């Protein structure tokens, strides 16, 4: 490592990502010039990625509690009560920067990292989801990134044997130089068997398990806290390499150990590896920690203390163990052929002490390292008002528009992607990708079903961050509701540009306000999450381009009786009813972008009272057993929602004419919120009467039957014809 020879000073600190003020603070805490290893520890712990220094002030405003929340943010993942003594443990996390530099490994290790966050708490992972944003399909590198990311997610998830059951994909030129890979894992544990990370018990051994430590991923946390320049691809050596086979063994070995009574505290080594796991465990427990790096299992010879502390080698965990159980634990890890090493112990000094080859390489007081970590109240600039929507006309006619929209990149079938992810392993997948608005996974040996979704509409967030943030929450809540499940909680993955730019900070603050408002109104707290900032690319002319603000939300709901779930496929007969008010809002609609080529206008209003009223009504009707299928109305409006229901099963319907007094394209393609298409038996009169009684707007949208979507003009668009357009996009892009 060449920097070993470098003198530790403000210049090196800047190279490590610390500002001059931050370095001064380091000097004040240490009372001397830090060693290289110490500087490394400060730089990663105070990186944006680990310290949330730009976002923390705003994250504190989010609602995080509810009677069913067992652990909110602050642990490795959020924990909620799902009944029958069980808990769901879940979180979503980004791996954006590594996935641009090295798509396969970046995405694969993103999956590995989020899995560890969940099983470290004692949960067996039962489902993976992923929210992906790629650049324009026309940009040549997009294809390569899609290919690598999808292979990476599949390569890891398929091997560890956790089904990948859902997610979302968008394409937009704003992600050309900075794709987003947000991975979510959901696990299930017994409520009395949840493991936390706060270390305790002076003298207790600190055990390292899993893979050996190599030189991969050094300073990954710092890399992901900076924007990309033209040399980004030269950072490939900072990307970690995953081994899903070892992860699978690690899951089984940890769960086997957790079934015994040996663990005091446990945490995975994620970003900033051994540094963050040891510092956070000791810090949370209010104890000191001594590490002996000579005992760390090493993959390469002659690694320095600096390299070992900063390595982000994958598939490693740190455990504080009851001393008398050390040999029981060792036997379990030997059975699974994993490294197991006692590398230190807890102390009462309040310091982290790192020893290597007889030298003390670092000695840092833990309290100031955590408590004096920088927090910034970054300035915001007023957001520009959304552009006027502009002239609205219909250049194609309803039928052509329909075909165009079902085949456009943001609506086209994702089967090409899903079909590379094992969605059935575990034998509990009730609704596979595309089968319902949220994936449904049964909890083995119970009647419980989990409803899982990820949602965000970035174009709404750019036009109006506050409405966009609220809409993302509302859509996640709605997607869970549409399956019949009760929404419980959300994990957030907040992807934004450079927070030092006031206009980006304003996007962040606006989105948080919208998310907070919606979560409060819908009793849908945030229980875990991740912030990814500096998602920008430097252009050759020196300017930088930010991604669209993308607060991706991962929602979790529960069905006490999983057999009561409904999917989105059109049944053979009955009546299709539109629930919710249609005003014909075309601003920022998919129709406007795909048909008129403009991303203009304000985002749709999110009326949270209506959202709640309509959703609660739909959920009650599903529970009552009168609903045969349900689909929320989102991208592309009513007509696309109906088309998706028809394409899912091949069963058709005959649409009623649009509401009078509204432009047809506004009625069919407007993206007003809080709406559902609900298929019920018979003529739907009982459903309409119940809706009226509940004060919920509802009207007949179509008579169900046949194998075509029949437009009010009488034009018959067959499910087969729509499916040809719907299925064409991905193979045409990827397999050419």
């Amino acid at each position, binding site marked *: 490592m060449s920097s070993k020879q470098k003198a530790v000073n403000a210049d090196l600190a800047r190279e490590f990502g610390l500002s001059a003020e931050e370095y001064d603070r380091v000097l004040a805490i240490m009372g001397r010039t830090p060693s290289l290893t110490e500087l490394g520890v400060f730089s990663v712990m105070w990186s944006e990625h680990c310290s949330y220094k730009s976002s923390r002030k705003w994250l504190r405003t989010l609602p995080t509690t509810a009677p069913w929340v067992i652990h909110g943010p602050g642990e490795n993942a959020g924990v909620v009560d799902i009944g029958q003594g069980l808990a769901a443990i879940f979180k979503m996390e980004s791996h954006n920067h590594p996935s641009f530099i090295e798509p396969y490994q970046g995405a694969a290790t993103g999956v590995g990292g989020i899995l560890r966050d969940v099983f470290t708490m004692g949960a067996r992972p039962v489902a993976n989801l992923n929210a992906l944003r790629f650049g324009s399909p026309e940009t040549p590198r997009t294809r390569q990134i899609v290919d690598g990311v999808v*292979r990476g997610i*599949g*390569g890891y998830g*398929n*091997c*560890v*044997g956790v089904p990948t059951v859902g997610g979302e994909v968008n394409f937009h030129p704003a992600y050309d130089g900075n794709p987003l890979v947000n991975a979510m894992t959901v696990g299930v544990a017994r409520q009395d068997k949840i493991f936390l990370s706060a270390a305790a018990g002076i003298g207790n051994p600190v055990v390292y398990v899993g893979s050996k430590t190599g030189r991969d991923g050094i300073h990954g946390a710092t890399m992901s806290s900076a924007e990309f320049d033209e040399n980004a691809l030269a950072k490939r050596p900072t990307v970690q390499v995953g*081994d*899903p*086979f*070892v992860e*699978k*063994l690690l899951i089984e070995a940890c769960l086997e150990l957790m079934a015994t009574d040996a663990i005091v505290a446990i945490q995975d080594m994620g970003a900033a590896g051994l540094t963050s796991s040891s510092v956070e465990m000791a810090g949370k427990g209010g104890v000191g920690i001594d590490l002996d790096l000579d005992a760390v299992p090493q993959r390469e010879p002659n690694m320095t203390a600096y390299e070992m502390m900063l390595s982000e080698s994958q598939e490693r965990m740190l455990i504080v163990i009851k001393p008398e159980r050390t040999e029981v634990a060792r036997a379990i890890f030997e059975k*699974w*052929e994993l490294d197991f090493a006692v590398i230190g112990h807890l102390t009462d000094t309040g310091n982290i002490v790192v020893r290597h080859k007889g030298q003390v390489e670092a000695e840092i007081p833990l309290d100031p390292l955590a408590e004096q970590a920088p927090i910034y109240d970054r300035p915001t600039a007023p957001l520009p008002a959304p552009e006027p929507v502009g002239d609205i006309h219909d250049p194609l006619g309803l039928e052509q528009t329909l075909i165009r929209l079902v085949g456009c990149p943001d609506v086209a079938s994702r*089967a090409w992607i*899903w*079909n*590379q*992810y*094992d*969605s*059935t*392993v*575990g*034998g*509990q*997948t*009730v609704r*596979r990708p595309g089968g319902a608005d949220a994936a449904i996974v*049964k909890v*083995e040996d119970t009647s419980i079903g989990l409803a899982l979704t990820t949602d965000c509409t970035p174009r709404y967030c750019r036009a109006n961050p506050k409405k966009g943030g609220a809409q993302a929450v509302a859509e996640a809540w709605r997607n869970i509701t549409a399956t019949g499940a009760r929404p419980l909680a959300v994990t957030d993955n907040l992807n934004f540009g450079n927070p030092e730019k006031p206009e980006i900070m304003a996007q962040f603050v606006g989105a948080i306000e919208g998310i907070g408002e919606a979560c409060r109104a819908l009793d849908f707290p945030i229980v875990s999450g991740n912030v990814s900032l500096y998602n920008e690319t430097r252009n050759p002319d020196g300017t930088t381009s930010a991604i669209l603000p993308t607060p991706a939300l991962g929602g979790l709901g529960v069905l006490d009786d*999983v*057999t009561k779930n409904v999917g989105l496929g059109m049944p053979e007969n009955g009546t299709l009813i539109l629930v919710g008010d249609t005003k014909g809002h075309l601003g920022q609609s998919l129709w406007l972008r795909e048909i008129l080529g403009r991303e203009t206008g304000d985002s749709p209003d999110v009326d949270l009272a209506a959202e709640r009223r309509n959703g609660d009504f739909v959920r009650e009707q599903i529970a009552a057993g009168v609903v045969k299928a349900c689909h929320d109305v989102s991208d592309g409006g009513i007509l696309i929602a109906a088309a998706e229901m028809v394409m899912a099963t091949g069963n058709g319907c005959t649409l009623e004419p649009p509401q009078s007094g509204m432009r047809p394209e506004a009625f069919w393609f407007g993206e007003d919120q809080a709406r559902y298409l609900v298929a019920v038996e018979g003529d739907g009169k009982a459903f309409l009467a119940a809706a009226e009684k509940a004060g919920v707007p509802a009207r007949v949208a179509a008579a169900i039957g046949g194998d075509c979507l029949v437009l009010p003009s009488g034009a018959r668009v067959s499910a087969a014809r729509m499916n040809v357009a719907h299925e064409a996009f991905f193979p045409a892009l990827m*397999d050419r």
Partner: protein
Amino acid sequence: MKAGIVVFPGTNRERDMAIALKAVTGHAPKILWHRDTELPELDLVVLPGGFSYGDYLRCGAMAAHSPIMREIRAFAEKGGHILGVCNGFQILTETGLLPGALLRNAGLRFLSQDCHLRVENAETPFTLRWKKGDVFRTPLAHGDGNYVADAETLKTLQGENRVAFRYSAPNGTVDAADRDSNPNGSLEAIAGILSANSRICGMMPHPEDLVDPLMGGEDGKPLFESLVEALVR
């Protein structure tokens, strides 16, 4: 029926298989560890799906040399019944208990989707609940399921009626060149084969994942019911 499921490091469909076996027998199967050097008394050994030893070498190649495989060979020699699904099928070909090999899927991508299988021989312990020519739906999930064998092996398999299942269209049409119905490009659309005594069956798709209407159907259940009928004496 006393069944045992072998778990190698990296096996990941043992629980799916246990659920399917329990659904037809009413009790949980035994779980066997790859380092075991003796087998309990069993009617059926199942090698389930997964990525044994990470499948970093050829799929199933490492597992074929693990300690328990010596016992499983002896079990086979004594006329024991063995079902190998997905990685289990790959392991059976690597051990030589079944002929042929499984190559990378023709499209070079992992495939996870439903497929349809046509029953080619309904007079085996694995298929007797079906009729020859029956078609059933089943999920598949693999990267290396493209069955190949040399011309002589193929001739033997066909001559001895040892092709158990072929990939087909839902109406039973078999067309090996059609990637929609034969998704991994298998030779002659072969999805599952039998040993000479019909007591060992290897197949790529996962009937064990379709034994419950809640998960989308029970199309895979007859395979397990067949085994119960054949092996419970």
